[in-house]
């Protein structure tokens, strides 16, 4: 027994020495994606500082400024870098605020999905038998309705029942709830599959022999060992949630025009795209595509790192 006593390194030093960090440094796509994602994220978080106008403040909006093209074009106005939309709002400011809303819906909806899915998946996988059967059939039923269909029905019924006024106030909350609840089976299935594999390992038996309660075994022992697949699907799900929100907004069931997300911006510009005002649709569209693309690329990279057994195509 040699005594090579080593002080335990700090968290940061551990991270810098990890496989995760090394493979990140080697992967150019991951670095570029992460940089772009970080830029978009910080720009949207700093929107009140970066944006020259407040698109929610009606006193700063002048209808006479409507549909001004980006400033590098003819008739451009140097106040509005990316031009203005049909109501005269500065596109640059509106995109910053819209990205913020899109990201917030994406992240919050995924948090809700993850919470529901992890709890249900853990319970189904750990207890098995009838509980498992019941919960997984529930997941199958939920999956047999497409997210968009559920969202359209719920949001349309809500709008019809409680009026557009209330809907505009609660749109953000409703979108998070609908997208969050509609997609939990993705998590539940992944977590359940991992739990089924982990449950058979002897450390779980050891915890049972100690006499620990099921809750503690599930959340303290099994859950930490199921987190890497959860992390991977989370990135894909964030991208999906952002797209779902954009689709719903495009269909007029998402964020109201007074508080536009990227999707509702695209939708509001769609009416003008053939009259020449392409920037109202195209610019938020590019931002949306970039955002979803980098999140997906990061997710792909993360899947390869955390799951080295997968062959890269």
């Amino acid at each position, binding site marked *: 027994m040699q*005594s090579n006593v080593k002080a335990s390194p700090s968290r940061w030093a551990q991270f810098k020495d990890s496989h995760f960090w090394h493979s990140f440094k080697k992967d150019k796509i991951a670095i570029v994606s992460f940089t772009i994602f970080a830029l978009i994220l910080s720009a949207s978080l700093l929107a009140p500082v970066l944006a020259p106008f407040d698109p929610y403040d009606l006193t700063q909006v002048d209808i006479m400024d409507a549909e001004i093209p980006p400033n590098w074009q003819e008739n451009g106005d140097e106040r509005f870098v990316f031009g203005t939309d049909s109501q005269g709002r500065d596109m640059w400011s509106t995109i910053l605020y819209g990205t913020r809303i899109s990201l917030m819906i994406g992240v919050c909806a995924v948090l809700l999905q993850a919470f529901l899915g992890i709890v249900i998946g853990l319970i189904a996988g750990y207890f098995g038998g009838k509980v498992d059967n019941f919960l997984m059939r529930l997941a199958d039923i939920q999956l047999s309705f497409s997210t968009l269909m559920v969202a359209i029905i719920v949001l349309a019924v809500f709008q019809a029942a409680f009026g557009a006024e209330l809907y505009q106030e609660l749109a953000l909350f409703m979108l998070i709830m609908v997208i969050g609840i509609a997609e939990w089976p993705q998590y539940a299935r992944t977590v359940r599959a991992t739990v089924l594999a982990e449950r058979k390992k*002897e450390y779980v*038996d050891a915890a049972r*022999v*100690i*006499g620990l*309660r099921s809750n503690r075994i599930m959340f303290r022992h099994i859950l930490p*060992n199921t987190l890497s697949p959860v992390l991977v699907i989370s990135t894909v799900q964030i991208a999906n949630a952002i797209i779902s929100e954009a689709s719903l907004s495009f269909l007029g069931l998402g964020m109201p025009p007074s508080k536009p997300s990227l999707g509702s911006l695209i939708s509001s510009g769609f009416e003008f795209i053939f009259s020449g005002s392409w920037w109202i649709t195209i610019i938020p569209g590019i931002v949306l595509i970039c955002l979803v693309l980098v999140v997906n690329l990061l997710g792909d990279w993360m899947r390869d790192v955390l799951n080295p057994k997968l062959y890269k195509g």
Partner: protein
Amino acid sequence: MTALVNIKNLYKKFPIHGDWLDQISFANGRFHMKREYVHAINGVSLDVQKGEALCVVGESGCGKSTVARVVMGLLSPSGGEICYEGQRIDHLSSNAMMPYRRKMQMIFQNPYASLNPRMTIKQTLEEPIRWHQPKLATGELKDKVAEVMKSVGVDPSWGERFPHEFSGGQRQRISIARALIVDPEFIVADEPISALDVSIQAQVLNLLMDAQEQRGLTYLFITHDLSVVEHFGTRVAVMYLGSLCEVTTARKLFAAPRHPYTQALLSAIPRLEDEKPDFIRLKGEVPTPVNLPSGCVFHGRCPHANDRCKREVPVLREVDGTQVACHAVEEGRLD
């Protein structure tokens, strides 16, 4: 001498039929439900005496690990009873079981799976004490962990490390430390050394024997390695296809095996100087535990089987201080 653990007429079967749709089968012109079970343990009765190391031996699939798991309450028996110090424990709720959890601990076979990969060694070792003695002061807790780590030969300063930083032998030492840390009286060891290197096996075995001496432990030791039994066991129970063949002291077993299966098993130990003059070759294979043979489970392969063996299940009977379940031994046909 009173028995610490009594296993009384234990049965365990595992269903292998699917859900109710899979069970429906069509035969002889009508539908009926077909249920199939693997009969892992069939009427095992065993007493573990205080202070002994009772080894359970047998080939793979004979149900020895299932016995260990049922005794520890990881599986519930299909029939029979488990008693600890005379109290029945196999049907207790997890709350009522708590006092026994401190007294009974288990060491597992695979040191690579039996430690939680996301917990440091210190967390793994502190958890059982925190759970069973929540009032213990942090200082005492740390002393206790350090003391147990030292006693199993693991440097206490390694506590911050994760299991993957250790070798198999060191991990098994840590597993043993986790079992010892709640000061148990009775330890079930399910093939604790079979996944280890031969050179490490002896070290870990000696560690287990030292712990037995210092702490007055009782072992139920599951193994398939007869040389381990010779070295470690005070008494031996030989299992075949979920039933006990012979229960006796280790010395008697190696000197004079009584049951035909035990004789065949012992003759199969490879020896260096041996030309295998009296090697007993058994015919056939172990029957499937799904459809157990009638009568004695060994009758299909036993050179001494007769009609009675095919009809009647033999029970353990005391013969010259050895418990043997064999009609031939009972009738004196073997001599």
